[in-house]
Every structure is written in C-alpha cells, then in structure tokens.
C-alpha cells in the first residue's frame, strides 16, 4: 500500500478534503459544527491554557495504516530538521509548557530524534512519544529504543487497534499485531507498564471500521484481560480514540459508502462537554516544517492557525492564547459521545 500522496489520490490535497467535508455538510440535512458550537455557546472555540506542545517530527513511517490521518508511510520524505527542533527547544526554554508530545509518522525515524528527546529532557519537560511499536523491531538499530525511552523517562503511547491479529492487521498491515506483541514484550521487559516502575505505557484503541469507540473503561478491561492472559503483556491505560474523518480514513469512508452514516453518527452524538474539553484548547501543534496549528488534524488539513506568528520561530504565547481556534466538520470526531483526544476521552 502507498500513501495517498504517492498514489496521486485527490485527497492527498487538503483542499479537496475540505471541499468534500463542506459540500457534504451543505447538502445533507445535518447541522454544521459551527452551528452546534453556537447552540452550546462555545463559538468561537478559544484556548483554555497551554499544557502540551505536540511536535510532528515528520511524515515518514515504516507502516501505511489504512486509517492514518497523517497519510504517513515509507514514501513520505517530510522530516523536521535539527534547526526547527532547536526553535522548539528555544520556545520551551522561554515558556513553562510542561509536556512535549512527539508524533509523526514514526518519530523515531527522524535522524535527530534521540538528540531532540535528550535536549527536551535537559529542560526538565515531560516527554511522551507516539511509538507505533513495530518500529522497535523493524531494524536492529531501533531495538534499543525501549532502553532509550527508559533512560530518559519518556512516556510511551502506542496504537493497538485490537487485542487480536485479525482486526489489528486489517487496519495496520499484515504481521503488525505479531510485531507489536514482540515490541510490547520488550517494553515490558525494561519496566514499561509494570506496576511501581514509574514507566508509563499507554495503548491507543481506535475502531477498525466506520463505527465509534465504546466506553473506554470497558475496552481497557478487555484489553488488559486478553493481553495478559494470552500474551503476558501489561500496560497502564487505554485511550479510546474516535477516527477523525480526514485523509486516509476519509478515503476509506467515502470508498466504502460509509461517509454519510458515519458523519450522522458523529453529529448525533455531539456532546458540549466533549467540545469544552477538546484538546486544541490546551495545546499547540507544530508541523515538520515549523508551522503552528491548533491540532495535528488541522495541521494535516493545512488549516492555518489564527495568530500573527504562525511559525515556531515567531512563537508568542500571549498572542496564541488570544486566538480563535479554526474548526470545520472533521471536528465532530473530537466531540462525539465521551469525546476524543490524543489522551482518550475528554468528557
């Protein structure tokens, strides 16, 4: 499988995705996201703090998952330079943002990844890395990642869409479940997810299809029970995430004829409390080229952030806190039911 970009798919262009989202919203008898926010007295959506700097260090990945909102893959060459990383470090040094969330692609494939983690840790910030697990066993040069994470007290957050090979491989590719199990065991072996170790290993569940995630606590129980009994794997928490209708997941929804039904479900399940807790209210997202966005999804849709300084070089926390957040129909993915964010449910 190739990325949308490499296969010349129309959805490789953010503008085409936005056009579809808006056209469908205009032609279907569905309220728009803006009108839902207005009726909940939440429009325009505004920041509530700045707790997380989420940095996308590149779109390159060893996997090509069907639902990927980044359209990542081995064929994507966009990678953050050390110079841009230095700008991020400068911002961290002059602010008190407590947490840095490193994402990609597979962030570990950025040649400066380890240096970046070390520098962030020197500034005393909490680091979490979105590790896709299989990268750890993809190449011998990555085999020591669990130890590297341990040394630097990095929180590991890893996608595992299901506790069996069938559903996981259908979404993430042949053999991914088996490799994920190997990687999870390596992480467990150095202490990740083990009670009392202080090393956090959280898993991310997202539905393998056009349906919403069920209650997070019940899914966590099931994952814990099966992963322990069948694979002797332990972890801390499970984050249940709703698939956002953009990029490859949008392509799947449209190609499978599920788009309208899925949007109807998200809209019907709109929850003002989840909108209040939307992650864009407490984070800033940095693209591989240093551009700033409200969140990783807006980043992939090329939706510019509404503040004078839109590059990490021009980061101005006060101005950023005054901005309004750019929203569109994809935002319904964050506000349905119990809500969804990079840290799981929000309501």
């Amino acid at each position, binding site marked *: 499988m190739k990325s949308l970009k490499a296969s010349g798919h129309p959805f490789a262009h953010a503008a085409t995705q936005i056009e579809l989202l808006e056209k469908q919203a205009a032609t279907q008898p569905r309220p728009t996201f803006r009108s839902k926010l207005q009726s909940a007295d939440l429009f325009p959506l505004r920041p509530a703090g700045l707790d997380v700097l989420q940095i996308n260090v590149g779109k390159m990945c060893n996997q090509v998952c069907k639902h990927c909102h980044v359209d990542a893959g081995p064929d994507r060459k966009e990678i953050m330079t050390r110079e841009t990383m230095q700008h991020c470090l400068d911002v961290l040094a002059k602010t008190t943002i407590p947490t840095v969330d490193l994402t990609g692609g597979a962030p570990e494939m950025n040649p400066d990844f380890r240096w970046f983690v070390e520098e962030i840790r020197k500034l005393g910030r909490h680091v979490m890395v979105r590790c896709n697990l299989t990268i750890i066993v993809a190449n011998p040069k990555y085999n020591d990642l669990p130890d590297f994470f341990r040394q630097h007290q990095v929180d590991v957050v890893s996608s595992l869409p299901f506790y069996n090979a069938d559903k996981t491989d259908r979404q993430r590719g042949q053999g991914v479940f088996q490799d994920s199990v190997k990687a999870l065991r390596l992480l467990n072996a150095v202490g990740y997810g083990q009670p009392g170790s202080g090393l956090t290993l959280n898993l991310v569940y997202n539905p393998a299809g056009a349906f919403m995630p069920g209650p997070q606590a019940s*899914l966590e129980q099931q994952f814990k029970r099966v992963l322990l009994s069948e694979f002797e794997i332990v972890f801390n928490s499970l984050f249940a995430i709703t698939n956002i209708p953009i990029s490859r997941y949008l392509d799947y929804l449209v190609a499978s004829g599920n788009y309208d039904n899925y949007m*109807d479900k998200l809209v019907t399940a709109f929850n003002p409390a989840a909108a209040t807790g939307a992650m864009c209210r407490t984070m800033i997202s940095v693209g591989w080229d240093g551009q700033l966005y409200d969140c990783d999804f807006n980043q992939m849709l090329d939706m510019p952030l509404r503040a004078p300084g839109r590059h990490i070089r021009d980061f101005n926390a006060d101005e950023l806190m005054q901005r309004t957040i750019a929203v569109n129909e994809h935002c319904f993915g964050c506000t349905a039911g119990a809500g969804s964010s990079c840290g799981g449910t929000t309501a």
Partner: protein
Amino acid sequence: METYYDPADLKKFGNISEYQKELADKFFSYYGAVFAEGALTAREKSLIALAVAHTVQCAYCIDAYTNDTLEKGCTEEQMMEAVHVAAAIRGGSSLVHSVQMMNKVKQVSM
C-alpha cells in the same frame, strides 16, 4: 426500488413519541435502564440483544446491535457465537416439541 424497510428509518425511532409521547418516554427510559451496566455488563447485554435481534429477525435491531457490539469491542467470532446461541435455541425449541409429536404418535398408534 421502493421497499418496506429503509435503513434511514432506524434513526427515526425516536419519532414514535410524536403520536404518543408519554408511553414513548416511558419506553425509552426503560430501554436505557435495561441496557445500562448492571449485574450484566453493557457488553454482555449487547451480545444478548444481537442474538435476540436475529431471533425476531428485525433488520433494524440487527443493524443497531451489529454496530453496538462492534463499538463495545466484541470480536466477529463472539458475535457469530451469539447468533448461534439464538439459532440453537430456535432449532432446539422446534426439536424438543417433537416429543409432543412422538407422544401423539404413540397415543394414536397400535
């Protein structure tokens, strides 16, 4: 082609209150209470509902509880086993009544 079943009608279930609000409200509040976590988990109840949906052969319920069981993290294997439970009870209930047939045969035969 026009058919009696339209998948879009499932979403209109709530509209039944237009003609009789009080009873509809009572029904939906009862329905919600039945499916809440209780002595059985919501997940177990969803699997039971999926099986019953196949017994009453309700296309709406099959649609709704296929989604619901998937959302609650059930595997396809678990879902199919639930349907087999419905099928076994259905088949078994036919077959166990054959004891009556046998009784009758014996009663009227020399």
